[in-house]
């Protein structure tokens, strides 16, 4: 049996002129100072405010109805009192509920169930007032629930309950997790109000998710205004749980990351949210949120997140693989009649793939050793690489989304993918000029003229473009056996393989042509392996988007 509340305010006595009839008079709201004080005492300031806002024009109290009820309650006539209350006019019912001594008397006269039935019977008064009496009496979810499902109770009466912390305590006492979830569902109101009650009672992740899901987006994101709510969330879930909950809440990327950072988040969860944010939303993250994220992540992780926020990077991958590729060489170069044989060479694919919101970037960090390159050398090589690879391709998908493929050689970079040794040109014994030799992926010539005047003393742009192809994992396309040519390039140009094999007319073959779509295969495959939700696969297309 719940503890009964002492009826301390019950100082009134049954009036001598109590009516013979117990039929209550016409509806009245007790707006007298005494009535309001009583309501304030029993139901709180908010209830008083609500009453005054919704009250009809003031009317004199009808003392008879109150007196009649008082008499019955004093007599301990529970059944009589319930019947009497069922016949009271709505206004009298409200007055009765606002009369402090009556509540004390009722608590004495009724048990839990009788109190509930008395409240069910009353045609007037607010839900708050009735629950106030039931709380004073002590009750159960089973008894309270019918009041909440009563279609006659207006919404404002339900939502005003949230302003009463004692009622929150009352509900916490009578409800388990599921019951509290049902209670706030019946009460309606804001998500914040509902979760407040649920968290105080003690709730589950599933229940919180259901409750969030019951609200429209605008109602969900209002939750971010309440830091105490973030604390509740943090107590309830871990990194990934918080990430899931903020996904459910929606809102701006800043809102979500701020709450995630508060919980102590992790790189994967942060990166995933940034990746899925819209092209405008990812720019909204504030310095404060950034600072909080930085505290949660390692320096390396933070630098990746920074790239996502500053440059719109969506995904990045360091490619580091190697393989053997065959092509024909002379068995013995000293013998002009020597046969050809298959030699295998290492092809090292080391580069960074970076997909941003606006491009697919293939970045190669290159460190030069040996001779220090001049600006003229770097320009020569960059121009040569650009001439072949820049604006040569883009990707597009069935939705018409297009991204340029940007090739980005980063010279003299830290943490290089490749090291290229720069060697001096050799003196031409015929002319006395300095001339370059053949370059490869690891050795380039760098002369003092940087090819500004003939003869060329420096590995030229075309060769740099070919070697750059190797740096991003492309193999040579010259002197290939038919099967290798068809595997790497495509259909062989002749049915019979000539001595020394086939050579393509591309940048990776004899350099008489440029790059081809198939050279983009690895990059496009990587991109298609990491599509955004709902994004359609891409294919390479020649030219800029």
């Amino acid at each position, binding site marked *: 049996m719940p503890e009964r509340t002492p009826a301390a305010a019950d100082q009134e006595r049954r009036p001598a002129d109590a009516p013979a009839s117990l039929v209550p008079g016409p509806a009245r709201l007790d707006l007298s100072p005494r009535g309001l004080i009583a309501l304030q005492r029993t139901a709180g300031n908010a209830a008083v405010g609500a009453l005054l806002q919704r009250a009809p024009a003031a009317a004199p109290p009808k003392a008879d109805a109150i007196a009649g009820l008082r008499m019955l309650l004093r007599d301990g006539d529970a059944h009589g009192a319930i019947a009497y209350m069922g016949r009271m006019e709505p206004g009298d019912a409200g007055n009765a509920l606002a009369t402090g001594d009556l509540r004390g008397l009722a608590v004495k006269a009724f048990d839990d169930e009788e109190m509930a039935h008395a409240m069910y019977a009353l045609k007037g008064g607010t839900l708050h007032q009735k629950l106030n009496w039931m709380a004073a009496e002590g009750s159960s979810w089973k008894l309270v629930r019918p009041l909440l499902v009563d279609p006659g109770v207006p919404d404002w009466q339900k939502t005003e309950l949230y302003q009463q912390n004692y009622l929150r305590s009352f509900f916490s006492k009578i409800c388990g997790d599921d019951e509290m979830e049902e209670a706030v569902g019946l009460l309606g109101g804001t998500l914040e109000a509902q979760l407040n009650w649920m968290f105080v009672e003690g709730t589950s992740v599933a229940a919180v998710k259901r409750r969030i899901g019951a609200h429209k987006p605008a109602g969900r994101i209002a939750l971010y205004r309440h830091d105490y709510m973030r604390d509740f969330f943090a107590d309830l879930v871990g990194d990934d749980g918080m990430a899931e909950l903020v996904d459910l809440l929606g809102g701006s990327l800043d809102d979500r990351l701020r709450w995630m950072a508060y919980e102590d988040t992790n790189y994967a969860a942060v990166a995933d949210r940034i990746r899925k944010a819209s092209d405008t939303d990812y720019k909204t993250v504030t310095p404060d949120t950034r600072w909080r994220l930085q505290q949660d992540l390692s320096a390396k992780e933070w630098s990746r997140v920074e790239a996502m926020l500053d440059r719109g990077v969506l995904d990045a991958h360091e490619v580091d693989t190697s393989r053997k590729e065959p*092509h024909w*060489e*002379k068995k*013995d*170069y*000293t*013998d*002009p*009649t020597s046969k050809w044989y298959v*030699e295998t*060479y*290492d092809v090292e694919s080391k580069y960074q793939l970076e997909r941003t919101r606006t491009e697919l970037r293939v970045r190669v960090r290159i460190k030069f050793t040996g001779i220090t390159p001049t600006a003229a050398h770097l320009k020569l090589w960059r121009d040569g690489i650009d001439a072949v690879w820049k604006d040569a391709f883009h990707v597009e998908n069935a939705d018409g989304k297009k991204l340029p493929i940007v090739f980005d050689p980063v010279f003299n970079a830290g943490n290089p993918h490749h090291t290229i040794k720069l*060697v001096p040109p*050799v003196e*031409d*014994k*015929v*002319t006395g*000029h300095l*001339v*370059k*030799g*053949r*370059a*490869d*992926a*690891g*050795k380039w*010539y760098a002369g003092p003229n940087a090819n500004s*005047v*003939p*003869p*060329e003393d420096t*590995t*030229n742009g*075309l*060769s740099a473009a*070919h*070697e750059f192809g*190797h740096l991003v994992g492309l193999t*040579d396309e*010259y*002197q290939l056996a038919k099967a290798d040519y068809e595997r790497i390039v495509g259909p062989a140009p002749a049915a019979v393989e000539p*001595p020394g094999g086939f*050579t393509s007319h591309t940048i990776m*073959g*004899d*350099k*008489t042509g440029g790059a081809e779509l198939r050279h983009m295969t690895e990059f496009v495959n990587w991109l298609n392996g990491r599509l955004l939700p709902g994004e359609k696969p891409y294919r390479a297309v020649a030219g800029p988007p």
Partner: protein
Amino acid sequence: MSAALLTAYAVGGGIPPATYEALRVHEDGVVRAVVGNAWPFGAPQDEAGSYEHRLEDGELAALAAVLSDPALGEASSRPEELTADAGRCQLRLGDDRDVVWSASAPAPEPLGPVVERLRAVLAAARRHPAGAVALALEAPATAGAGEALPLGITLRNPGREPVALAQPGDAGRLRARVRRVEGEVGGRPDLEALVAAEPVALPPGAIPAGLPGGSEQTIAGEVALAAPGRWRVDVLARLDADLPYEGETVRLECVMLAGPVVVTVGA
């Protein structure tokens, strides 16, 4: 029948068109060389072919002495990882052992002196063509803007034996590079620059099917120089040739670079 091989040296391979210089020195002093493409460090580069020569006794003895240095045995057979693009050098030592190294690297120690001597032998041998193809460019010194400039290309066989030219009609076998220049013009043509230069439009049958020994053939190719100024013109020829070699023929891609010719284009 050739005498036993004393030594052999070659530079071969690399991105097409591949370098090819092969030298074989026999114990009787006979030297045979076959050169398809002498670029980047060989000479001459405007000629490819088969060459034969005999060393004088003193030269042969000096070479044999160098090759007999016991220190040569210390050279690693493959001192570094080879790459396809750079091509490779190969040296056959007296013990029938081959040393192979990247063409973009100097000869490994202690092979430097041997290689230097063999390159001198090769240069000397190339003065004795058995059958070869030499490319020449004799464009006029002046031209009008926008006018067709006859390049004055000739193919000549400076040797005594004929050279057959296979697939002579393929487009792109001759390419010309024109570049505006100022001041002194020097230096040999650059293969890397020429390989992607514009093909020279040739009439059908412009390239002969063969060149008898001592013969010369003019090729009717031309370019247009649109703007006034001084222009440097270089030409590349890539021809498959059957070269005489030890009584037989060997098919080889012959790569020849000719130029520069300076043309002044008037307004």
